[in-house]
């Protein structure tokens, strides 16, 4: 057989495919169309089921979410200072990507850089992979790329979905902390203050808060020895005295009493099962 150019080989292959399908293929209707119809029925059923679950488990107001969330959140307020924006789930990967690029000069990578590169790669795929081979086990690069893409998208989406930043005074969250960390009652005032003062903007506490700015997790900060109520109160009042140049100085915005309450709260925080 004469050596043929790759293009000729591909053309011949497609020609063979057409001949084979003509000879051994089955008519689209009803063989394939039956599968399609069943699948479409499944799709429509899933959509209707989701709509029903969403509606029947939720209440009329934004404050009564069901299994699939509320029917709508409260009306748009461009002047809010308490709302925590989150995108729809299929943008969670992008949302978390934006949290990963936490340096000012790298913002553009997360916003347009990586999405653009991904889109261009997808568009160029048929021209990057021009081999005729289609069997998966003989396309190692494609397999690895696919696994990496699925993994990273999955992880980013999961991280985006579970990123918690609670609002000041969210009582349910405070209750959860009291319960899970075995906090004594006198630590409650400090816990409320902790949530209100925006500590979670940087610190992680029992899974709630932000972990990507380098600030330590405070869930079990009281379990570390050699500290105490006074130490924490003074630290929060002026972190500079302790060599911390990053954390804001709270000595001016919080009163002595407030600082002491925070100290009690942090000192009592010994992690789940570690408390008193």
């Amino acid at each position, binding site marked *: 057989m004469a050596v043929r150019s790759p293009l000729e080989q591909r053309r011949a292959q497609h020609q063979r495919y057409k001949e084979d399908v003509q000879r051994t293929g089955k008519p689209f209707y009803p063989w394939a169309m039956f599968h399609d119809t069943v699948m479409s029925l499944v799709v429509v059923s899933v959509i209707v089921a989701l709509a029903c679950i969403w509606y029947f488990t939720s209440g009329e107001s934004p404050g009564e979410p069901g299994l699939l969330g509320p029917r709508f959140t409260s009306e*748009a307020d461009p002047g809010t200072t308490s709302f*925590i*924006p989150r995108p729809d789930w299929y943008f969670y990967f992008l949302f978390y990507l934006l949290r990963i690029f936490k340096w000012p000069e790298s913002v553009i990578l997360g916003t347009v850089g990586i999405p653009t590169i991904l889109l261009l790669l997808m568009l160029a795929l048929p021209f990057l992979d021009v081999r005729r081979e289609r069997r998966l086990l003989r396309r190692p690069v494609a397999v690895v790329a696919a696994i990496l893409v699925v993994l990273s998208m999955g992880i980013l989406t999961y991280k985006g979905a579970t990123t918690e930043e609670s609002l000041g005074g969210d009582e349910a969250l405070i209750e959860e902390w009291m319960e899970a960390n075995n906090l004594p009652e006198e630590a409650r005032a400090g816990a409320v203050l902790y949530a209100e003062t925006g500590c979670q903007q*940087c610190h992680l506490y029992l899974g709630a808060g932000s972990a990507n700015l380098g600030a330590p997790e405070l869930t079990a900060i009281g379990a570390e020895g050699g500290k105490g109520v006074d130490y924490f109160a003074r630290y929060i009042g002026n972190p500079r005295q302790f060599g911390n140049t990053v954390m804001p100085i709270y000595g001016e*915005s919080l009163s002595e009493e407030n600082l002491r309450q925070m100290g009690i709260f942090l000192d009592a925080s010994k992690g789940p099962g570690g408390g008193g």
Partner: protein
Amino acid sequence: MEPPAGQHRPHAPPPSLWPVGFAVGIAVLLTGVILGWVVVAIGALLTAIFGFLWVRDVTGGLRTVPDVEPERREVAPPAAPIRADEGGAGMVASSESEIERFPRSKFLEGATLGLGAAIGGVVTAPVLGFAVLPAFRGGEHEEVDVGAVDDFPEKEWMITTFRLDPDLGDVTARTAYVRNNGMLDGRPSFTIVSNRCVHLGCPVQPNGPAEDKGTQFDNKGRPNQVIRVPTKPAGFGCPCHGGQYDTEGNPTAGPPVRALDRFEFSIRGGRLFIGKPYSVGGVRGEAADAVIRRYDHVLPGVHVEGPSALMYPLEPPR
């Protein structure tokens, strides 16, 4: 199928203009329903006269046989029978010989393409312009009255929510953190920081307790509703992607690309007015002594200083 021409005597009536008059009559009659009975009468008369003439014409064919030669035309034999199921009947591509018979005319081609382009241009240009240009006009607001200067205690922060354009309603609601810095050289000084994060525009929150959550001041009797809540921030934080700012709006951690935007202000008759927003590269010093590196107002995420600012050489008119 229509019978081939010339094989039957034509049944069709001879051409006639009377139906036109008949139609005009009906039109006049209908118009008369609106205008008055006289016009109705005229319309009815016209309709009757032309109707009579028309009917006479049509029935004339039955009364006398016309003395006209039946029309005949040469019928060219069809080139090839076209089967109905082949589709595309009548859409026959021009063959070589026809191309020779009708040599392509440069003029006709040019004219067709040119006219087409002209039509496209006439339709597209205004539509595109209309879609794009209005977005880059307007945006100027009057200064907004946010209350008496005395409502802002010295050295205290107030979460101040107001409407940029009271006429447009809540969609223009904005929040600023306002601090009365006291007097500087005998003139009042205010720090007015926007609560839009300069990373991607999320609502920045004060890192500190908002005192007296129940107390809200309504700017009664003024067109613009203003809400003021005292707060004691040690800084500001963004709940979206974790940007952190100090009390002057300088970024301290996370992705923000510059300092928080600020608003111009003026004081007239003892009342504080919030004016245009502007962007800030950074702030040195504090409160009344702050030195602000000021830039025109730009979108969140846009660098104003450093090498990254080279990526945004042009700003749209706002």
